[in-house]
């Protein structure tokens, strides 16, 4: 660090918010006011980010919204808040484009009754209809639902080509296992959150089980040399693959953050923020920058699909790492 003329030791302080928003709010303020940390890293989950961002912003602390986030945060002016993930505004049109290409004519949309589900559920329908895909069913389901077989059976009864779910891992796991159990197979099977996670998804259902399932994301080792490096490092360190949605983006956002700090040569949040908001730096996924709303825009992919154990990017255009597999093969026969 130039300001101090030397590299500064870094101490990581982390607290557990026991998944309680009140505790989280207190702990963030504790980190800022009591521990006087230099930099703040965010809590996991969209709702948590929503609560953390205004607090960090109030004290002029940079917060990079890695794990989670939503378009809704655009409505609030938070100059110190940076968003890393891609959202429904780019993923929904990308999915519609892929569907049109492979020849999907009808779709069923189910979505979780929360911030994430509603945002995606609402966003998809117009893009589908624009491309001549008929949405024959659109239903929300409550968090904590125990049985989704009636949703699957209804979609199956309507004979839709594509089944699209804006879900979280719990619902995604249930949808996958119940379609397997019921032998219900769609030509296209897409879930927003879950497929990108190799450990949760591929780990539970196996390489053959997840073959052809699409999910939000996306990147893989083929994306860039830096991406391959990240996968190797991650496998070495944790014995499993990183997640193929945010994994690389967070990594790159931190590299971007680091270079911004180095360039600023100070711990002054304002100066670093200004550099982050305006400059491009080279990262593991290539050039990295934020738009005027402080959203990262140069994502290596929007939609992924499991093909032979690899989460391939299937976006229409040059980001594609493999052509989409359509129709999806039937679920594997179990013992």
């Amino acid at each position, binding site marked *: 660090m130039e300001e101090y003329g030397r590299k500064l030791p870094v101490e990581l302080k982390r607290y557990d918010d026991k998944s309680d928003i009140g505790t989280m709010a207190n702990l963030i303020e504790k980190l800022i006011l009591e521990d006087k940390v230099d930099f703040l890293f965010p809590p996991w989950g969209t709702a948590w980010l929503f609560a953390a961002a205004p607090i960090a912003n109030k004290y002029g602390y940079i917060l990079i919204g890695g794990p989670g986030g939503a378009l809704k945060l655009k409505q609030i002016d938070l100059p110190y808040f940076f968003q890393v993930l891609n959202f429904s505004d780019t993923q929904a049109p990308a999915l519609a484009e892929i569907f049109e290409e492979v020849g999907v004519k009808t779709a069923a949309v189910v979505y979780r*009754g929360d911030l994430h589900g509603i945002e995606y559920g609402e966003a998809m329908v117009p893009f589908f209809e624009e491309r001549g895909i008929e949405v024959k069913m659109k*239903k*929300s*389901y*409550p968090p*904590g*639902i*125990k*049985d*989704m*077989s*009636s*949703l699957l*059976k*209804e979609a*199956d*009864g309507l004979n839709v080509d594509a089944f699209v779910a804006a879900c979280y*891992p*719990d619902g995604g*796991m*249930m949808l996958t*296992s*119940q379609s*397997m*159990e*019921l*032998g*219900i197979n769609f030509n296209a099977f897409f879930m927003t959150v879950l497929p990108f996670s190799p450990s*949760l998804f591929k780990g*539970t*259902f196996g390489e053959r*089980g997840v073959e052809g399932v699409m999910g939000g994301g996306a990147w893989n080792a083929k994306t860039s040399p830096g991406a391959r490096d990240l996968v190797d490092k991650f496998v070495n360190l944790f014995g499993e693959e990183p997640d193929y949605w945010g994994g690389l983006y967070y990594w790159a956002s931190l590299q971007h953050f680091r270079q911004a700090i180095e360039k600023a040569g100070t711990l002054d949040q304002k100066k670093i923020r200004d550099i982050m908001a305006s400059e491009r730096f080279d990262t593991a996924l290539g050039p990295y920058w934020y738009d005027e709303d402080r959203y990262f825009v140069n994502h290596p992919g929007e939609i992924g699909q499991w093909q032979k154990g690899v989460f391939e990017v299937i976006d229409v255009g040059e980001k594609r790492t493999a052509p989409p597999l359509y129709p999806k093969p039937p679920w594997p*026969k*179990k013992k």
Partner: protein
Amino acid sequence: MMVTILDIIIAGMLLGGIYALIAVGLSLQYGVARVLNIAHGEFIMLGAFITWTLYTAFGVNPLLSLALCGPTLFLIGYVLYIVLFSRLRVRAASPGAYEGNSMLACFGLLFIIQNLAILIWGADIKGYSFFAFPVDFAGARFAANRLITLGFAIVIGLVFYLFLARTRLGKAIRASAQEPEAAGLMGVNIDRVLALCFGLGALMAGLGGALISMSYKIQPTMGLEYTMIALIVIVLGGLGSIPGSFIGGFLLGLVGSIVTYVEPGLALVAYYVIFMMVLLLKPKGVLGK
């Protein structure tokens, strides 16, 4: 194939089987031992995770794990009663005070068991595939594992009912439920019978958890949901009535299946509306007089 009425009814039965099984244990614990065990779902969770561990780590058939989960959970329940609840019972100024205190102690147990489980297994959602193939039944299609679950739930329920109705021990339990003092006079060691009941409740939870893990995804924090369902069921069937819990379970499963078909978002709302209506209008349960 459209979703048929039969489809909805059978789906309701499949759900109801699980509901009934987890409610019977709670019903016994409350009906006889007078402990409203809010940590009941935690015992279910333990059963589920033991089965999951045995299956994924050692390849033990989940149906075999039933034989292990039951006794393990029974032991935990039995010891807990002796160490904790019997003392609360003896000390309490009134039966009402005992019910209140023991319920609060259960809240403590809930936190303890849940967080121990998180320490052991991590907070992530888990699952495995077992009998995960479709079975065609009367023109409708169902998952094999859920049918197995239903079958076992009914068998376990029946065995349990026969145990209470026919065996000497079962009769002692029922006597203690009706008149604890008289049972004590008749030479029944009341503390041991109550501990037995609490243990049996935990055993049922363990079996329920093992069955649940075959067709549902599991998580250390899953307990409270199941406790609430079990609570609704035993209120529906009448507090403390074993056959009532069974019928209540199937009733609630049916309601859940119908509402989920019409508007999935309202399923839980419907459960709680029913729960509160029954509490207000027929506190002795829909079967009660």
